[in-house]
């Protein structure tokens, strides 16, 4: 078996909205290999966001197995999940989610506080340098451009040296030039050996990944953009129904 950062088997997620049950995920099987650059696409309402929350350990599957970096996280409690998020996952959000009025290096050092790590300033500076913001250490978010803010966010995701970067529409709030810069950083990080999982609805962004997983109606499908330009489902692996 290959070295998988993510191994998902038969994951379902059911939401209860009053008396109505909503099946957001109906049995998802997928994997991400270490060092891979994977994009997850899907229309809204497909279960894409639900899957991303589960991948990011912000939410727990109703049933099924999720192994992240060899750890079964499906049955961890809230505090253990927080620790997993801290150590194994680097989040990059569409809206950057930087804290207002806080200098860049402190933003980046934030996960280190919760990790109880030492040398926070040095590590934060190192992470900022790796995204080309070595001269913006003391800048606050309102003194940075959108592209720079997203790079600060990427530095914050990198600083704990996580098993994977999980980016949710990282270019969604950026102009095309900044978007390209940010994608270039992801590609470079991937080339340096980082595992990158990128959730997007933009086929052009997804096309820059090595592999694309398409979520549709609560299930995951392999997606091959080379089949036709519009990108249709090539393979629909038999979903494993989990009772």
């Amino acid at each position, binding site marked *: 078996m290959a070295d998988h950062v993510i191994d998902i088997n038969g994951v379902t997620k059911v939401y209860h909205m009053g008396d109505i049950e909503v099946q957001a995920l109906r049995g998802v099987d997928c994997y991400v290999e270490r060092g891979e650059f994977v994009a997850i696409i899907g229309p809204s309402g497909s279960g894409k966001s639900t899957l991303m929350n589960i991948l990011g350990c912000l939410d727990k599957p109703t049933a099924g197995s999720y192994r992240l970096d060899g750890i079964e996280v499906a049955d961890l409690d809230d505090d253990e999940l927080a620790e997993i*998020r801290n150590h194994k996952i680097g989040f990059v959000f569409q809206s950057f989610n930087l804290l*207002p009025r806080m200098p860049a290096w402190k933003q980046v050092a934030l996960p280190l506080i*919760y990790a109880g790590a030492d040398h926070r300033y040095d590590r934060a500076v190192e992470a900022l340098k790796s995204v080309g913001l070595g001269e913006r250490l003391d800048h606050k978010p309102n003194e940075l451009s959108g592209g720079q803010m997203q790079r600060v966010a990427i530095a914050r995701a990198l600083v704990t040296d996580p098993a994977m970067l999980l980016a949710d529409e990282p270019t969604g709030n950026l102009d095309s030039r900044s978007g390209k810069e940010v994608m270039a950083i992801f590609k470079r990080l991937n080339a340096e050996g980082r595992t990158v999982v990128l959730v997007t609805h933009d086929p052009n962004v997804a096309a820059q990944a090595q592999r694309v997983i398409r979520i549709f109606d609560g299930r995951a499908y392999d997606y091959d953009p080379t089949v036709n330009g519009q990108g249709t489902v090539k393979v629909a692996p038999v979903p494993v129904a989990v009772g």
Partner: protein
Amino acid sequence: MSVFESFQVALDSLLSNKLRAVLTMLGIIIGVAAVITMLGIGRGAQAQIQAQIQQNGTNLLFIRPGSTQQGGVAQAQGSAQTLTTEDAKALADPGAAPAVASVAPEFDSFGQVIYQGNNTNTRIVGVTPEYLDVRNMSLASGEFINANQITGKSTVAVLGSSVAQTLFQGEDPVGQTIRVNSGGNNSTQFKIIGVLNSKGGTGFGSQDDQMFVPLTTAQTRLAGGGRFRGANIVSVINVQVADAAENDAAIQQVSDILRQKHHVTYQDDFTVLSQQDILQTAETATGVFTIFLGSIAAISLLVGGIGIMNIMLVSVTERTKEIGLRKAVGARKHDILTQFLVEAIVLSVTGGLIGVGIAFLLSRAIAGVSLGTLSLTPSIGLDSVLLATVFSVGVGLFFGAYPANRAASLNPIEALRYE
């Protein structure tokens, strides 16, 4: 995350919105300053009243005649003329009343006192030599009444400082002669042998506005004296108790002697009032006053606490996204809880300390202001500072707990999605 780090995180976020932090603290600042100042004023008033009561001498008992009955109708207290010089002598017997240190009977009268063109109407008190010490008085010049003058019924007088000032206006009164009109056309010449130091007002008529003559002279020559009712009547017997601890014993001994001498069978014809009773009454009154002021001030502290809760709740809502982000990057529930609790406590304790500082400034300012004869001198004790500090930590914990818990319980997904 350690407590120290929680402090850093809390300070960072408070400093990032200084105006709001200051406005939030304002409620606590005002509350704590008010509580401490009010307690200080109450305590200052208490100390002042105590000092004034003790100015009259310490460990005193005042024995006054009781009321008489005339044809079955009770007369006013003090209307009886039952206390005599002999009673006072009996009380001074150390064998019968060992708890008594000193006895000073007095006979009170009023009269018009005249010196050349000046005159004043004042209280004229017939006293014995013991009176000076018992009532804690001191001579500014000359001498006090002595035993020979008592026996000889001399017409000599010692003036209180304000009487001396009114009549002599800076001139030395000692050796001068004044005329006293006390009842009817009777006029007597008195030679002044001494002047007392000022004692200041007590709120019950000035101690300085009186004149002292030998007890026997007053009993025989002044209005209300023995010309009408026998020559040995006294108005009040001042008794000094040897030791405050023997106060109750002294009251008992004094009462026993008087009952025996007066052949009391049913109801005492005298009353004994102890200075400690007066002190206790005054203490109770000022204590109630202090509690009253303090509780009004405590209400403002409570309002300040609610202000903190209000701002913390707003802050939790406003920072929902921040909380979501912190949770996403690995903050556990108790990290968030600690952060918000520490923020609330930092706010309330800082506010409390500033409030203590303001209370000190306020009481200095108040100490300079005097209201008539009464000047308020607040005294701030370490205990009220500690109380206010502990209370403000409590306020921070209590009113911070709910918002902090709300923040800690936020679902990270919803918090991140919050706009």
